[in-house]
């Protein structure tokens, strides 16, 4: 196998002082929020360099979230597909997805900054559940904004958030999905910025969020790098694959492999492929690729997966796509449902619909992948999705209407 020498300069360095990854990123927020973003940046820089903070963070990840999570070798699936499949098991974390990493980091930081209230947006509800969990753990108030459409298709997570003591507020405008939940969370933050921390759930938004959220998730890539080295005799996988909504689980796992020969592949839903369309735009605080019409009106994404139903993408992914360090592919809802069933049957692992996108691409690309080793970030478990998938498979018209060709 040809190995390009690993150089030590990462392809995923910190953003510049204006929060740019190449030409993407920045801080496009109302004046009211600029001081809060600057304060957050300073607090993060200081905390991230403070051993006491990082120790407390890693201790929580270990004793509360259950890290490190394993890498599982999928023997049956590997022989069926013709390449070696490894899964990074973020689905085994407390609360069921990778989202807990970022939330524990931000909640600790918010506490350090003296903020007593968290607001968050959520699509699938995983980030909302993780935020509600961290708020309960640290004795903070928590308000989660969620699109009305998502409240319906992720009813289980809505109940979990309420059980955890969070208030779930329905976002009624626009497409009533993740994009509108972000709008509502930002409007809340504009009005409550003195007391409230906006616990943003992905590598998006104004600087320092895309960078800070990636840093809180880099534990995924760091662990996986060491685990793969052990499994692969010091080698790295040929491919590292992750689904991309905003792009946090992808940024986390990519950051462990950006300086290696591993090919990085992000998988978007066909109905929400911001990078696939590659039109730059500015919304929710940063410049990135954005699904929009000819006038710049943001378009509504459509995906069976509430967690990927977002028309934008984190700015660092736009940059990685532009410089060619990562590539981005898309899959349809039908392909995702097949992959969802495939992993359940062959490995006894019910994936969330989001990481099922990664697997769906792997199935589609099996000729290209033949003989290689592929690490997929299993970003979450499928418990939250089984009712929706059951309804789709039963042919329920309302559930079917969440699918797009």
């Amino acid at each position, binding site marked *: 196998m040809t190995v390009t020498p690993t150089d030590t300069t990462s392809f995923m360095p910190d953003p510049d002082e204006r929060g740019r990854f190449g030409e993407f990123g920045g801080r496009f*927020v109302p004046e*009211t929020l600029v*001081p809060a973003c600057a304060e957050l940046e300073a607090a993060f820089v200081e905390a991230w360099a403070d051993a006491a903070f990082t120790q407390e963070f890693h201790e929580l990840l270990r004793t509360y979230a259950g890290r490190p999570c394993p890498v599982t070798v999928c023997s049956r699936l590997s022989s069926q597909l013709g390449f070696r499949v490894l899964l990074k098991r973020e689905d085994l974390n407390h609360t069921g997805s990778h989202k807990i990493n970022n939330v524990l980091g931000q909640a600790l930081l918010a506490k350090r900054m003296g903020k007593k209230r968290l607001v968050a947006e959520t699509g699938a509800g995983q980030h909302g559940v993780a935020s509600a969990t961290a708020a309960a753990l640290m004795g903070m108030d928590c308000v989660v904004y969620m699109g009305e459409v998502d409240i319906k298709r992720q009813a289980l997570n809505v109940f979990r958030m309420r059980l955890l003591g969070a208030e779930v507020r329905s976002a009624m405008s626009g497409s009533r999905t993740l994009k509108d939940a972000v709008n509502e969370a930002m409007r809340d933050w504009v009005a409550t910025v003195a007391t409230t921390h906006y616990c943003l759930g992905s590598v998006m938004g104004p600087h320092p969020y895309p960078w800070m959220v990636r840093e809180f998730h880099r534990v995924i890539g760091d662990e996986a790098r060491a685990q793969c080295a052990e499994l692969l005799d010091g080698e790295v996988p040929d491919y590292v694959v992750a689904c991309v909504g905003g792009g946090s689980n992808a940024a986390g796992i990519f950051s462990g492999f950006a300086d290696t020969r591993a090919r990085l592949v992000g998988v978007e839903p066909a109905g929400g492929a911001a990078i696939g369309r590659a039109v730059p735009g500015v919304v929710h605080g940063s410049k990135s690729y*954005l699904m929009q019409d000819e006038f*710049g009106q*943001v378009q509504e994404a459509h995906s069976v997966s509430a967690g990927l139903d977002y028309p934008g993408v984190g700015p660092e992914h736009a940059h990685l796509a532009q410089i060619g360090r990562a590539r981005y592919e898309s899959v349809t809802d039908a392909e995702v449902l097949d992959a969802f069933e495939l992993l359940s049957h062959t490995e006894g692992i019910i994936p969330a619909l989001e990481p099922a996108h990664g697997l769906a691409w792997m199935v589609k690309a099996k000729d290209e992948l033949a003989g290689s080793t592929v690490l997929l970030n299993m970003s979450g478990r499928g418990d939250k999705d089984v009712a929706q998938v059951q309804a789709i498979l039963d042919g329920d018209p309302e559930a079917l209407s969440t699918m797009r060709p």
Partner: protein
Amino acid sequence: MLLPYVTGGYPVDEWPRLIEGFAAAGADAIEIGIPFSDPVMDGPTIQEASSIALAHGSNPTMVLDRVAEADVHIPLIAMTYYNIAYRMGHNRFADRLVQAGIGGAILPDLPLEEVDDWAAEADRAGVATVMLAAPTADDDRLVRVATRARGFVYGVGLVGITGERAELAASATEIAGRLKAITDKPVVVGLGISNPEQAAEVSQIADGVVVASAIIRRMLEGGSVDDAIGFVARLRAALDEV
């Protein structure tokens, strides 16, 4: 100074009539909103007007074409979100504003650190980039914002989004006073100014007020274009007393 606000595209067919009507009712300048799909600085009232306008096909080109036809002799200022300008291209957007007879632009999600590229094109085309100055900024930042501002400085009257408030926020007169102390440019306060009394109170310190949600809400609740114009006349009368 009185600066009432019009949403480009709401009420759907009649909105251009508001421009001439507001001018006749004594507006000193008019803010023309170009609807955007994701208006994060706006509360429910402006959101609703924007989404009705968008649902009926409002777009920046259409809005600017209609504004160009308006027969008014007071300054017009566009208010929209940055992606509208970015998508069209800074130079084209600036030129289109000039062609429409619009002399200024307010882009509430384009703060000081990000404004230079746009502002350079706006300066070239002769469009005044009005900067927002927020109560959360320290004095050093207010000075830098005011220095970059063209036309006037827009003092953000409260920590929050647009929408009516029963009581005038203390921050409205505070930000006016802080800005008057550091700049010679006109200071106009907007956000949360809901009735003639509040407009008059802010105008004791500020050089002008923007009134938006209070006007739009009257029409969303079934009031006519003439009712909205009548309300602007009442605002005018209150300011004339100051």
